[in-house]
């Protein structure tokens, strides 16, 4: 009978004992390898202990509430009584001992773990090695490309093959700098995998991976690594442009009505300490008209379109250097003053680097305003996962021809005007949709309600 010992595991260098807090399995129960069979507690920590092997729990040696030293046998598992064990019976005791000790052995540097494994090394199945050396993602990629993980040099913990390793390997490029020298057969082996890149893997790479080409450095140049925000921005821009076919449409908006509201409300807002910028007016108006244009606030996802239920406005903030896009969540539920104050709050915390991660996620439409720096208008990039972005140009006094509504006579007037550009994903937004959206937005802004 193959009885395997289950010892109290070493859960930390300075942990000498543990208390059995609960048996999750009882004597006679069938257990699967890696299935939790008991819980132990050591001062502030509860931990689940998995079965070292499949079989039947045949004896419990330490009862709930008892405290025993690390290494004390707490139970026995009979591997013949339960589900068939993976390895031949004769090897089981050795294997079990190695595995039961695993928590301790693996905590030690890889070098120490290796000799322990080597006793059964020759018998270790290829499958076992794959499991210990790679993650499910890596195995999936390997399977997709018909690559054997054994051929891939691993740079990860204890020589594990990381996702980057396998992607590098499939690309046929050099492994990461720290990697061991690629065995000679590796490169030819990678070649047959290349055609597979034409399949699902190619799209995975196309939609997710970004690598910036490198250029020679000249004597007078200086080289600095990109900081985190720059790196993410660079990657995002490449992907955003790669995925969405961009089209841009323009409209010119008259800000006279908005100025009228601003002038009228100024004393009241000053008393409230409210801050309502031109951008806030636009954001408020956008949030009110977006519901009429579901395709503008959508995302192409596979062969589906996700129509977003929340008007979450990403507002581009210049960090100089750098750019971050905090999100005004559910802007359609906020008043004009509410939108204005929220923009000021997010922008100032963005500059102080005090934003919470969830405050820069979940945008369903974005607004960017390069006009504040004097730009006439821009062609903004549509953030990945959304279908449109509105760019505001500078608000300037221009000479325009106005028609008297009563007499029909034309005359020249000086008006504050601003060019808007809408960047949209032509997969889901048609030119006419964009035109209707911009016209509707212009209409609302040029007849701005006084009670917004």
């Amino acid at each position, binding site marked *: 009978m193959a009885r395997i010992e289950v010892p109290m595991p070493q859960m930390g260098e300075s942990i000498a004992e543990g208390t059995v807090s609960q048996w999750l399995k009882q004597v006679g129960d069938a257990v699967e390898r*890696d299935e939790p069979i008991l819980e132990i507690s050591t001062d502030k920590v509860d931990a689940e202990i998995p079965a070292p092997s499949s079989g039947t729990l045949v004896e419990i040696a330490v009862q709930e509430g008892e405290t025993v030293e690390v290494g004390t046998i707490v139970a026995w598992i009979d591997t013949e009584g339960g589900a068939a064990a993976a390895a031949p019976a004769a090897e089981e005791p050795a294997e079990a001992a190695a595995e039961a000790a695993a928590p301790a052995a693996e905590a030690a540097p890889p070098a120490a773990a290796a000799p322990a494994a080597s006793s059964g090394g020759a018998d270790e199945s290829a499958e076992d090695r794959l499991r210990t050396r790679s993650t499910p993602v890596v195995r999936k990629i390997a399977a997709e490309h018909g690559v054997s993980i054994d051929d891939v040099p691993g740079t990860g*913990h204890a020589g594990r093959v990381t996702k980057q390793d396998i992607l590098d390997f499939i690309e046929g490029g050099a492994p990461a700098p720290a990697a061991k020298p690629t065995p000679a057969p590796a490169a030819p082996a990678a070649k047959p995998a290349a055609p597979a890149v034409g399949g699902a893997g190619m799209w995975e790479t196309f939609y997710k991976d970004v690598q910036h080409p490198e250029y020679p450095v000249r004597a007078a140049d200086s080289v600095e690594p990109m900081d985190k925000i720059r790196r993410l921005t660079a990657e995002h821009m490449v992907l955003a442009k790669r995925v969405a076919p961009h089209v841009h449409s323009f409209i010119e908006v008259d800000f006279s009505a908005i100025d009228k509201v601003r002038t009228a409300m100024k004393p009241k807002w000053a008393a409230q300490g409210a801050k309502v910028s031109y951008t806030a007016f636009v954001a408020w108006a956008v949030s009110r008209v977006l519901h009429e244009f579901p395709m503008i606030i959508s995302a192409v996802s596979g062969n589906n379109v996700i129509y977003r239920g929340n008007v979450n406005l990403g507002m581009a903030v210049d960090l100089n250097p750098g750019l971050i896009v905090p999100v005004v969540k559910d802007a359609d539920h906020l008043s004009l003053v509410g939108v204005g104050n929220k923009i000021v709050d997010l922008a100032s915390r963005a500059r102080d680097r005090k934003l*919470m*991660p969830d405050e820069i996620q979940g945008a369903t439409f974005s607004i960017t305003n390069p006009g504040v720096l004097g730009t006439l208008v821009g062609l903004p990039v549509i953030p990945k996962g959304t279908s449109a972005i509105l760019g505001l140009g500078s608000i300037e006094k221009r000479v325009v021809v106005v028609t008297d509504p009563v007499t029909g006579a034309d005359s020249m007037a000086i008006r504050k005007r601003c060019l808007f550009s809408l960047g949209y994903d032509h997969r889901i937004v048609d030119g006419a949709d964009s035109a209707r959206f911009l016209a509707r937005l212009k209409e609302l802004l040029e007849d701005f309600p006084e009670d917004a």
Partner: protein
Amino acid sequence: MTRRSLEVLDVGVMSYGDALALQNDRVPLRRAGEVQDTLILVEHPHVLTMGSSTDPAHILVDEAERERLGIELHAVGRGGDVTYHGPGQLVGYPILDLKPDRKDLHRYLRDLEEVLMRVAESYGVDAERSENGTGVWTARGKLAAIGVRVSSGWITSHGIALNVRTDLGFFDTIVPCGIPDGGVTSLERELGQAPEGHEVRSRFVEHFCAVFGHEIPVAGPTI
């Protein structure tokens, strides 16, 4: 070596039961490698939770009084004695895979303490470990409590509770973590005024990432 990424779920006010369900959903996903290391940040309504080593005598209110005060009671599978959670307390539940670099429960606890001490220090509050047990103390009392669970595959759950502007009166309903006369304190009590909640969360995330070697999460669409 690239730093690992951390997903922060800042869920705001959430009942203890719902937050527990959220953790229980995440743990198997983390084990299967389907999600990244996760840090759940939450604020609970009044609740007492009993860890596996709770002495019932450490709950000082009877059921009627507890209900009158609107305090829930939960028995949970984490280490430690009874503790109180409530408004004004930053609760953090890291769902981490400890396998790659810290398969040592004590080290994990010390690292959580380190994060809490650094957050306190960033406000000029001197907080230290204590021989009395896991957690972080100032001269006035216990500032933060820790109780964690490690599920099979070295996946963590449960975590820390930092008193920011907690109504410390509610701790009178228990013997905190089984240590009588320990006293409790909050950042508000230490500083004379309560720091902004979002700022504390943001500093916590920052120091958490520094101690555990995660990249500070900056994500979402940039233009």
